């Protein structure tokens, strides 16, 4: 099937500064793609380029098979939602929704029908006559989403739409956006720095850094097979524990350093031929086994609890194992205290190895 959005060799310079360089990306029809990265990684810039709000320096952008590289934002068949809602303050919600349609010269009854339909989908019908100042944050963002929906665009672009909302509302609207996508089946590109939003919403996640896409894959793969150390560290909370060491040992490969020697049987190497050399070992806090499981693990370490963060559902603890400091997840009902001794177990099939120099996955 033809991709909904396709970006070829896109580059963007601000003067001498290369913000995006030779970026390629294809988004399938009806796909929910999340651009994820810390601030300044170029994710919002990329979205603005797709929307046509920034003039690109090189490359091409296709939306729906049409070359829109030189098209105005309004002619690209997109709807966009912004972080600050960007509702026109002097217009009512209905006015906000219909502004774009009026500009497009649609007949009045058509505009009314579309506004009503959109308001129904988003359940903002009672708010149509209110001005943005009289709405709460969640209602404003819903109206802003409505303004994008009403355009009947093929592609929706979301620029950190939930970042200004409080945690509870963010979770609610996240679910609504997901439901909306399941119902409308439009292509959506969603920019966020929040890994939970990315993991929960995305069909595929593109993790960006310094204007490059580091990994483009499903949430499952990003979590289980991060392509490099940055991605591994970025996804997961608390983030992955890393240890310095070497991979070696002839027939039975081992990862080893002063504190640890871990057999690598069962580890799925990217390239089984050349795994020797200096490396980082990564293991997620939730994959460190504790309790009865740990006593059956292939590798067992005695550790002392330093600090405890109870969350109710889980309890995270920072522990000291020999010279290594690592975070582990314990049961939410456990009540460990600093100074307690616990036994940790590590399963070699659930660790991650990264080359020390390139930081790529081994």
């Amino acid at each position, binding site marked *: 099937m033809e991709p909904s959005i396709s970006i070829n060799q896109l580059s963007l310079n601000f003067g001498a500064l290369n913000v995006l360089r030779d970026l390629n990306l294809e988004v399938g029809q009806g796909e929910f793609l999340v651009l994820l990265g810390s601030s300044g990684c170029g994710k919002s810039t990329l979205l*603005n380029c797709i*929307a*046509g*709000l920034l003039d690109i320096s090189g490359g091409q952008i296709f939306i729906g098979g049409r070359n829109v590289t030189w098209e*105005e*934002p*309004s*002619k690209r068949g*997109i*709807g*966009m939602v*912004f*972080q*600050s809602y*960007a*509702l*026109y*303050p*002097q217009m009512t919600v209905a006015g906000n929704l219909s*502004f*774009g349609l009026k*500009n*497009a010269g649609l007949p009045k009854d058509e505009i009314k029908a579309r506004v009503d339909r959109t308001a129904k989908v988003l359940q903002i019908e009672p708010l149509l006559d209110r001005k943005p100042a009289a709405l709460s944050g969640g209602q404003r963002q819903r109206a802003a989403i409505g*303004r994008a929906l009403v*355009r009947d665009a093929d592609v929706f672009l979301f*620029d950190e739409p939930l970042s200004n909302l409080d945690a509870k509302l963010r979770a609610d609207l996240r679910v609504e956006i997901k439901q909306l996508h399941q119902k409308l089946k439009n292509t959506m590109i969603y920019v966020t720095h929040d890994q939970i939003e990315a993991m929960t919403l995305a069909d595929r996640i593109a993790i960006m850094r310094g204007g490059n896409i580091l990994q483009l894959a499903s949430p499952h793969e990003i979590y289980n097979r991060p392509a490099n150390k940055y991605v591994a560290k970025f996804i997961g909370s608390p983030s992955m524990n890393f240890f310095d060491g070497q991979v070696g040992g002839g027939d039975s490969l081992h990862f080893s350093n002063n504190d640890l020697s871990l057999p690598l049987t069962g580890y799925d190497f990217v390239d089984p031929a050349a795994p020797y050399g200096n490396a980082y070992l990564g293991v997620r806090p939730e994959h460190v086994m504790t309790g009865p499981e740990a006593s059956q693990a292939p590798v067992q370490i005695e550790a002392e609890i330093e600090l405890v963060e109870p969350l109710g559902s889980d309890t995270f603890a920072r522990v000291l194992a020999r010279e290594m400091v690592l975070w582990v997840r314990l049961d939410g009902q456990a009540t460990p205290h600093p100074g307690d001794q616990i036994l940790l177990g590590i399963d070699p099939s659930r660790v991650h190895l990264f080359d020390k120099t390139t930081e790529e996955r081994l």
Partner: protein
Amino acid sequence: MGNPIKNASVVNLDTRRMTAFPTSTTTQPLNAQEEMVGPQGRKPGKILSRRNIFIYGTLTLVALYYLLPLYVMVVTSLKGMPEIRLGNIFSPPLEVTFQPWVKAWSEACTGLNCDGLSRGFWNSVKILIPSVILSISIASVNGYALANWRFKGAETFFTILIVGAFIPYQVMIYPIVIMLREVGLYGSLTGLVLVHSVFGMPILTLLFRNYFSSVPQELFKAARVDGAGFWAIYFRIMVPMSLPIFVVAMILQVTGIWNDFLFGVIYTKPDLYPMTVQLNNIVNSTQGVKEYNVNMAATILTGLVPLTIYFISGKLFVRGIAAGAVKG
């Protein structure tokens, strides 16, 4: 076994010492309310504190000092000449007369014209309205383009405009005379309107640019996605959001243009002199008796327009200045 009664009295003694009432003779256990000792609740404030007396005293003094000339003007304008000659400028009028006001408005002579200030008033109105409208419309579009449509050379254009604001008027007076003469507008109201509009441009453009820069960029982006062009965004999004800054610009221009003397006297001819020039001619006329009451009335009349504007829009003025100052 210890004596329970004796023990109890020891406890009571301790409690009393803790509550810092050693002279108290009560043997009742203290209840909760009495136990809260020391400052509590709202801090009492004195209305007649030394600080308040100082602040309000100074303010009153300064206000009186500023209002005194106005008071003198008003009372003098309501007196007849014989009463003025007595020389008590602070005393209220014994016999109130509005004759000086009538004379100032419609009878006072400047040169050959003896129709008072009314001619100058209408001239000023004819200068003011087109100048204000023209300068604000152009400057607001300038500021909008500079803030939101970063065109090539925008920075250079803006720098030139601002530098223009620092060139002394005197340097430009004669060149403008020549330019107006060449296009045939010298001595006409149209010429003066153009001059006022041009000289208002730097400061107004700066004002509008700063205000529009403080409007969130995302709003502008949203309007572009919604298919609005340069003018649609300006008229439908930006202008309706910017009432305060338009009021500020209007106040600046109205007072500036109304109070202008130099351009008025240079670029027009006696028939078309604005009110300020005519006021000067009435007050400084060397023939006959100096009619202080008429002069005072004429001066108040001339100052009335800016004064009215301030009273009407004072609140919006402050809000607009603050709004423009947030981001620059």
